[in-house]
């Protein structure tokens, strides 16, 4: 067992060291070995955290670290100013200034620095943080391993003269450290620091390809997240002005009357929502799609956006039982619905994935807003399941991109014949996003059960669920459109692709079948960390029985749901896997499809005789409803409504604060 300070160092500083090494060593294989070693170290380390359990940590020479953090903070902000000026992007510049000026004023003018230095402990490693750490370390590391080969192929395809892969891997590995620091941080200035580091890395990674589009989108991500940074600083200022402690555990323990703290809490949640790309701030995450796919995988599954939902979830006790809580639920639920609807009209695979991420983050935030123990359980389970499934889907998208060199859904037609292996993995990933017996559905199921107290949220949930079915099934359907001919060969892929893919598939089935163990081992304690009131949730054997917390019925220990999960996996196996393996067709049984009697040829052709006996290919285009559900048609509405919801959210917080004073 490592000493605790070593564990902290491995979690936060090892990625920094590994990143620097990767940057210096520009040899493909050596670089790969370092990434793999760092990944293994991080995974082992995160498991050690799990075994160790809840703890706090303050660095030994705190003053030195405070100084480092402060200096780096200002360096980052100065870099933003430089970016704003050199790109002539005034939004970046303005929001960099709105950060650096209040921060300097707060730290040195108001004397916030002394208050911050007094915060103890600097890091709080509770069970929620451990869950996050596991997600970041395991899923994030696998994505970094995937990126080794991906970047090689990527640059090969682009015919780059000078490899920039080491720079790319540098930021990727660094990201993991920053995220670990973020979820452990208790001191708000540390939180702010890691927050800004993730924003910075995000900017660097999005801009990696250095095309005009990439740089523009990176700048957009930068200024949007800078708004969040500004909100965080304002929250700190208010907290300091009210005499509240400048630490997360301080806010949660409710040092001052909690209603007074509602505005800073709302600001912090706002910061989290921007990072979680909630409407109307979704465009930065959509823009981030221009980056190489491992970046998207990292941003979506384990890092960046998860930081946003983590913060909202972390603060749940601070706004429990208030109207702010209901508003947060509605903002999340609205995002869930709007993003699911918009996903239907998307023609690019990665944009569908992006909207799906936004939608699911909305669901998690809505669960945090519903704020019952059941909802919080759902939220934490969703974070885990979403990270695994979405990580897998993005890696699949990346692999597919390198097979067909396109991101368009229409181009993925018939991949089941061209790349059966990836198709199977992708199908598992897709099914795990919205269908029983997989984890995401279990989370959504719990969310729906808990949402029965807020009919509006329930309404948004069910519509979003239906839309979810449509866009996933539609996309998966593209893969399956194959000609009847036999003899598809399994494609060969680099181990750097397949190992992370298969491990994530294993993870999907693992956390799905073992959801009860995941619950008892991880989630239960994390929920207990977040939920301050109410009884602990009971678990029976393989089945997951959630007791209590019925909003309508006052009866305690009323079973809301009791189902064994593993029989559903048997059903799944009987329904999908066994037919998949055993349904065989003899070549003689294959017939071409029905084309009104005008097929031109046998089973290997999709042509028909058209006007004037000309052979024409069948072309199948999916339904996208761009006129009704397209961004152009829906965005005016979604922006308006989401901004109104945000404004009401702040108004509610302000009113509560005014009332308390």
């Amino acid at each position, binding site marked *: 067992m490592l000493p605790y300070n070593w564990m902290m160092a491995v979690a936060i500083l090892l990625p920094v060291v590994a990143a620097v090494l990767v940057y210096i060593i520009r040899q493909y294989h050596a670089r790969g070995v370092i990434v793999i070693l760092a990944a293994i170290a991080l995974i082992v380390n995160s498991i050690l955290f799990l075994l160790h359990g809840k703890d706090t940590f303050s660095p030994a020479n705190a003053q030195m670290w405070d100084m480092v953090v402060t200096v780096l903070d200002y360096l980052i902000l100065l870099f933003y100013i430089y970016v704003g000026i050199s790109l002539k992007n005034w939004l970046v510049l303005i929001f960099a200034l709105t950060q650096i000026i209040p921060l300097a004023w707060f730290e040195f003018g108001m004397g916030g620095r002394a208050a911050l230095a007094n915060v103890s402990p600097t890091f709080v490693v509770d069970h929620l943080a451990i869950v996050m750490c596991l997600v970041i370390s395991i899923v994030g590391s696998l994505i970094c391993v995937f990126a080794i080969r991906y970047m090689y192929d990527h640059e090969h395809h682009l015919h780059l003269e000078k490899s920039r892969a080491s720079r790319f891997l540098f930021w990727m590995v660094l990201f993991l450290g920053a995220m670990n620091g973020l979820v452990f941080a208790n001191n708000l200035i540390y939180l702010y620091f890691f927050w800004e580091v993730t924003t910075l890395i995000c900017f660097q990674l999005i801009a990696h390809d250095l095309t005009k589009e990439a740089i523009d989108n990176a700048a957009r991500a930068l200024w949007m997240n800078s708004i969040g940074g500004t909100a965080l600083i304002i929250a700190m200022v208010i907290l300091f002005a009210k005499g509240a402690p400048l630490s997360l555990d301080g806010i949660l323990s409710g040092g001052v009357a909690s209603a007074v703290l509602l505005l800073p809490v709302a600001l912090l949640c706002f910061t989290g929502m921007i990072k979680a790309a909630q409407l109307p701030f979704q465009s930065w995450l959509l823009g981030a799609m221009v980056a190489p796919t491992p970046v998207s995988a990292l941003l979506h599954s384990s890092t960046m956006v998860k930081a946003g939902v983590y913060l909202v979830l972390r603060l749940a006790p601070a706004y429990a039982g208030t109207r702010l809580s209901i508003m947060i639920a509605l903002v999340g639920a609205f995002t869930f619905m709007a993003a699911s609807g918009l996903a239907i009209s998307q023609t690019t695979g990665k944009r569908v994935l992006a909207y799906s991420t936004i939608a699911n983050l909305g669901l998690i935030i809505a669960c945090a807003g519903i704020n019952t123990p059941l909802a919080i359980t759902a939220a934490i389970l969703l974070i885990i399941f979403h990270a695994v499934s979405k990580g897998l889907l993005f890696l699949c998208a990346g692999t597919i991109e390198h097979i067909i060199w396109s991101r368009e859904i229409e181009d993925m037609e018939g991949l089941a014949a061209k790349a059966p292996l990836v198709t199977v993995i992708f199908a598992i990933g897709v099914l795990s996003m919205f269908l029983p017996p997989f984890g995401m559905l279990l989370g959504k199921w719990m969310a729906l059960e808990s949402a029965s107290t807020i009919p509006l949220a329930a309404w948004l949930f069910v519509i979003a669920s239906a839309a979810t079915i449509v866009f996933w*099934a539609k996309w998966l359907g593209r893969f399956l459109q194959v000609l009847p001919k036999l003899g598809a060969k399994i494609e060969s892929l680099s181990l750097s692709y397949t190992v992370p893919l298969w491990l994530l598939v294993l993870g999907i089935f693992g956390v799905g079948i073992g959801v009860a163990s995941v619950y008892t081992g991880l989630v239960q304690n994390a929920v207990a960390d977040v939920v301050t009131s109410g009884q602990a949730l009971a678990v029976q054997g393989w089945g997951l029985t959630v007791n209590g917390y019925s909003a309508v019925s006052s009866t305690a220990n009323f079973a809301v749901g009791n189902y064994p999960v593993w029989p559903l996996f048997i059903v799944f196996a009987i329904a999908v896997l066994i037919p998949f393996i055993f349904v065989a067709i003899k070549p003689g049984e294959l017939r071409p499809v029905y084309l009104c009697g005008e097929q031109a040829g046998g089973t290997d052709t999709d042509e028909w005789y058209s006007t004037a006996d000309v052979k024409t290919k069948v072309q199948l285009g999916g339904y996208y409803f761009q006129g009704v559900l397209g961004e152009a048609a829906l965005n005016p509405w979604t922006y308006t409504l989401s901004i109104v919801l945000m404004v009401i959210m702040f108004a509610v917080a302000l009113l509560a604060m005014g009332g308390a004073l």
Partner: protein
Amino acid sequence: MNAWIIAIVTVIVAPFIGGFLAGIDRRITARLQGRFGPPILQPFYDFFKLLGKSKIAASRLQLMWIYAYLVLMITALLFLVLRLDILLMMFILGFAGVCFALGGFSSKSPYSHLGANRELMQMLAYEPVLLLLALGVYAQNGSFLISQIYASPTPLISRLWPIFIALLVILTIKLRKSPFDLATSHHAHQELIKGIMTEYSGPYYALIELTEWYEIVLLLGIVSLFVANPLWVGIVIALAAYLLELFVDNVTARMTVGWMVRFVWAVGITLCILNLIWFWVFAAIKGVS
């Protein structure tokens, strides 16, 4: 052990009930059209005839999804008869629908492709109503368990009648009756030929028929939940609902997909939401007093 017996009996008996109902459907439809109609046992003849046809297929993936469709439909039915969680049953029913749609996508046929897309649009229309139905059950009984519905002295319909009406609307979609026989239809005089089923033939088509029989039983079972005590009243109501669907089938033209989604969302979902809001307000008033 009791549950096992119920499950096995259900799996064996349900298709007979479903096939019989389908036979009655065809006879009554014929009478409504001024014809004599086929024998009541006609669906069974069709089924066995199809089993005896040679197997032909347009792709291997197609068949996999159709088995999944059948297995999941049976699973959903077992959830009903074993009185388990109604919300999860709806999700499994949704999975079955997705499998059916994916089966339609699994060949390069324009008609089954368009049919599958329409099936997804149908799911977009009916899935919210089914989920809201489950939430309505929760609102009344405080539980998602179907066993609680049977245990409860007040029938669901007494407070959930708006949701019941919404259920009747989507029953038309699920039973593929006019005006919503969009993705595929029993009459086959359709712009999409047989829509999603176009590429299935012989024994595989028989599997779809079998699944539909299970589906009929399942759907009527859901309808009968609205008067679960005594059960026979529920069954009578379910059969009445079935007759109503046949009647509607014969007095309407087929509508378009867009109209269906608009109609179901405007009427069905609104009814469900009003019902739930009423519960919410009711609970709030009770909480105050």
